[in-house]
């Protein structure tokens, strides 16, 4: 028996391509002569009425092929873009037009579209279009949106797009009856996914066969396909969407369609030429999507043990100028905030607000970092008020291992009950305390204090709904060469799908790992799919692939049994050869593939080999009624509900007594995503997630001025971490509580790394500062050195002696 690949650190097959410079990203498609290039004129104003657009200076330019404004669009192309996920609470959903009609609502909104011989000329042309604006006052930030003395959309009262309330029990009564109560106000600022590859789309129309092919850097090929077909008034069957290699997504590429994903195919059809659009970095900052901006108010009641009896959370979500992706982010915050805990009663209400800034769609973690931050800051506050250990207060609130499945009594983002499938939170906590040295920390702190150094420790726990439905599918095809072609419809942005999916197939089918080739995100190969987001790829496509490979295996064994005149139960498949256990009799999978298709032409060696076997009953049709030719398996996986991964992070930080610089001394992660298919890849996901989390906690924010200009729309000014900002080591320990919901027992792992970061840093930095600045509370994230410095100044309660000790004893 070959060793199982499930659970092994298998090196990635896709890397060969990437390492040789042979990756195929969208901008690498259709390179060379003949391809035309698009550029977009974007609004320089956050809020304005467009009174006139003059494209006269552009129309006749050499090398310019097309200039469009909204007036040039007809039919469904002239309608607002779709609101993808409507929700009854989203009473005032609004979406943008492919090209702005009469009004712009954020800097960067698309106004005109130009196609020219190359991008340089297209940009020249964009620069010559003259737009006359009537400026309107901009609404920037949650305070301005709530004040509502100016409106983003005239017909949306109070700038409120949605208001949603959920309650389990009577939280307000429970708080009123609690022995202790607290209230907190907590803020998180905006950040963004910032994949290194921006958005890009290439389209080609083939008039001979009436087909549109679109290559796009998306997290959902099927979604883009449906959008292109609907807006260009084509049949779904006329549109193929191919997602080649994608240079990172992190959520921002799930929105669909982007204006360019419609305009590029439309232009390709009209011009009869291949057209390409590649976003530049500034465009990505001002015309793609952001996330995270929320303000929260917490009321909590608890007992002497720190057990939460009632929790009442109200928050305001800044969704920017439009709501194409509905309420997914705030719904996730409102439900996932509960983490591993079970409050006595819980009420949550949010308002989703319009502002004249870039729209919001999910960014890795999707609303969970905010929720985790709110809940964990609350736990810290309870611990501080009771003078208890922070870990102890958390433990007092955990759902216990014997309580699964655990129903939180709320409705989750997928419209299903928020019911956790499995987990063991006390075991996680024990591992984390061990890993970070929680119990030894007081001694370490004292030692550091003697050297004049300030250190603090923090921890934070989360539960992450992963593997959301509704379904994914897979197709497994064994070729007559013995090679196995696997297709699944969801896309890939660097998560190693080609490798982990091949591991699953090789295990089931008994073929050689090297013989498996996986294709993702190509609607020609698998037209039914959802997409890659919400840590769902391994759970959804992984399970579908497992099921499809199982079908192919069953068929292979059935045919091989007949050919070898043996019983199916006596067969095994090893390295692509089916054999009768304990005998010499065997047949290659490729030969079985030939036999599966009663078309007897000898194209290759496998077909020649097949002539020695005879299968099928000569008295019956060559393809039986309940059979079909070919050695293939196709299946779909559609679970009842999400899986729930969980984890805990802890960090030890040092804060500089003078400069307030924050540095990381130790970072520890305990992670439970069920069974691990490839631990190397899961660890890579955690590393990347932690780095993004550190970025969000300490560095990254969208700096808007009051007029709605994004002041840091470049990598020069938006502080994305280099290696210099990331600790040299991240200590990781795994716990595997298998999910009962899928055949592999897996949960997703893609987002976990970022979820607790704001919480864990707020906790650790507060802890470092408390002895010197009692009362100093970190309530807004990210926290920069200058903000910490300012907080210190506002909390000067430090005993003078202690402060001077800091100075004297600095090494």
């Amino acid at each position, binding site marked *: 028996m070959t060793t199982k690949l499930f659970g092994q650190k298998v*090196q*990635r097959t896709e890397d060969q391509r990437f390492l*040789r410079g042979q990756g195929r990203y969208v901008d690498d498609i259709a390179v*060379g002569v003949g391809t035309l290039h698009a550029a977009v004129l974007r609004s320089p104003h956050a809020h304005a009425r467009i009174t006139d657009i003059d494209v006269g200076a552009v129309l006749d330019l050499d090398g310019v092929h097309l200039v469009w404004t909204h007036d040039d669009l007809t039919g469904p192309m002239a309608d607002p873009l779709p609101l993808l996920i409507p929700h009854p609470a989203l009473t005032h959903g609004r979406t943008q037009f492919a090209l702005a009609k009469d009004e712009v609502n954020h800097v960067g909104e698309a106004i005109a579209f130009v196609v020219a011989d190359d991008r340089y000329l297209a940009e020249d042309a964009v620069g010559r279009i003259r737009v006359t604006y009537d400026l309107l006052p901009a609404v920037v930030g949650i305070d301005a949106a709530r004040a509502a003395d100016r409106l983003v959309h005239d017909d949306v009262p109070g700038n409120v797009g949605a208001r949603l309330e959920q309650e389990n029990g009577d939280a307000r009564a429970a708080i009123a009856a609690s022995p202790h109560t607290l209230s907190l106000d907590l803020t998180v600022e905006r950040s963004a996914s910032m994949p*290194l590859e*921006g958005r890009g789309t290439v389209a080609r129309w083939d008039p001979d066969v009436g087909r549109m092919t679109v290559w796009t850097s998306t997290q959902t090929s099927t979604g883009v396909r449906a959008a292109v077909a609907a807006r260009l008034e084509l049949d779904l069957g006329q549109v193929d969407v191919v997602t080649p290699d994608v*240079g990172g997504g992190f959520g921002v590429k799930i929105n669909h369609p982007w204006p360019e994903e419609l305009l590029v195919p439309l232009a390709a059809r009209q011009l009869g030429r291949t057209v390409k659009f590649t976003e530049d970095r500034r465009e990505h900052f001002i015309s793609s999507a952001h996330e995270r901006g929320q303000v929260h108010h917490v009321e909590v009641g608890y007992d002497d043990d720190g057990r939460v009896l009632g929790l009442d959370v109200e928050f305001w979500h800044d969704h920017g100028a439009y709501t194409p992706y509905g309420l997914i982010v705030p719904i996730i915050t409102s439900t996932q905030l509960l983490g591993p805990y079970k409050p006595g009663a819980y009420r949550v209400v949010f308002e989703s607000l319009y502002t004249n800034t870039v729209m919001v769609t999910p960014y890795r973690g999707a609303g969970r970092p905010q929720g985790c931050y709110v809940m964990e800051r609350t736990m810290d506050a309870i611990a501080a008020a009771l003078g208890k250990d922070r870990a102890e207060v958390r433990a007092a609130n955990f759902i216990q291992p014997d309580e699964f499945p655990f129903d939180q009594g709320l409705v989750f983002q997928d419209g299903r009950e928020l019911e956790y499938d499995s987990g063991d939170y006390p075991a996680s906590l024990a591992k984390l305390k061990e890993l970070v040295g929680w119990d030894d920390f007081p001694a370490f702190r004292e030692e550091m204090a003697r050297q004049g150094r300030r250190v603090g420790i923090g921890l934070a726990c989360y539960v992450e709904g992963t593997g959301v439905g509704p379904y994914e599918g897979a197709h497994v095809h064994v070729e007559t060469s013995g090679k196995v072609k696997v297709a699944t419809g969801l896309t890939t942005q660097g998560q190693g799908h080609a490798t982990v999916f091949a591991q699953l197939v090789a295990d089931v089918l008994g073929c050689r790992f090297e013989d498996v080739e996986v294709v993702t995100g190509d609607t020609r190969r698998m037209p039914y799919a959802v997409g890659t987001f919400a840590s769902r790829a391994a759970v959804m496509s992984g399970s579908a692939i497992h099921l499809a490979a199982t079908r192919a295996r069953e068929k292979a064994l059935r045919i091989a049994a007949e050919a070898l005149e043996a019983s199916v139960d006596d067969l095994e498949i090893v390295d692509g050869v089916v054999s009768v256990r304990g005998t010499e009799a065997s047949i290659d999978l490729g030969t079985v593939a030939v036999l599966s298709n009663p078309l007897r032409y000898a194209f290759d060696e496998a077909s020649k080999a097949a002539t020695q076997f005879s299968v099928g009953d000569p008295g019956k049709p060559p393809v039986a009624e309940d059979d079909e030719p070919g050695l293939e398996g196709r299946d779909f996986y559609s679970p009842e509900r999400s899986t729930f991964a969980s984890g805990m992070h802890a960090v030890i930080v040092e804060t500089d007594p003078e400069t307030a610089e924050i540095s990381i001394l130790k970072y520890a992660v305990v992670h439970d995503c069920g069974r691990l298919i490839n631990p190397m890849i899961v660890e890579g996901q955690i590393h990347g997630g932690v780095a993004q989390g550190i970025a969000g906690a300490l560095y990254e924010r969208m700096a808007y001025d009051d007029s709605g200009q994004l002041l840091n729309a470049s990598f020069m000014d938006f502080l994305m971490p*280099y290696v*210099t900002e990331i600790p040299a080591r991240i200590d990781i320990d795994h716990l595997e509580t298998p999910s009962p919901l899928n055949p592999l027992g897996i949960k997703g792992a893609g987002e976990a790394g970022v979820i607790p970061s704001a919480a864990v840093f707020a906790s650790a930095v507060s802890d470092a500062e408390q002895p010197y600045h009692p009362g100093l509370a970190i309530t807004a994230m990210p926290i920069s050195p200058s903000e910490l410095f300012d907080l210190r100044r506002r909390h000067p309660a430090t005993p003078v002696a202690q402060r001077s000790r800091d100075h004297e004893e600095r090494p």
Partner: protein
Amino acid sequence: MSEQLHDLRLTVNGVAHALRVPARRLLSDALRHDLGLTGTHVGCEHGVCGACTVLLDGLPTRSCLMFAVSAVDVDITTVEGLTEADGTLGAVQQAFLECHGLQCGFCTPGFLTTVTAGLRQHPTPTEDDARDMVAGNLCRCTGYTNIVRSVLRAAELAGGEA
């Protein structure tokens, strides 16, 4: 908008190419779009991310900050030129493979070229040297941990003679 075109010869990965481009054509665009060497990636076009890094006479250079017309009389090496003549991966490429030093692979060509040059200067780097070596390149996926490991492994594979 007709522009004056310039004839030039670029030597890339040992091969001389003749091309005709406007003066403002970026080297990164000339490599990618005129020569079809799409391994060099553009992540920011303002010199900060390092994805477009190529070697000019062995020295790492951001090809998005340079015009093609100024890259004459130098030997340009792109990621496509790092593979050995017999088709096997070079030491740096092999190390990134072994250490899972990449995820989406978009930043990778810039890291590979940068590290190739770095190891020539510093064939036996300490961990701090390794971190320094890649400190000018952005990666959004890996969190850098495995990239640093890759640098150390590459030094090992090259036997201190990168």
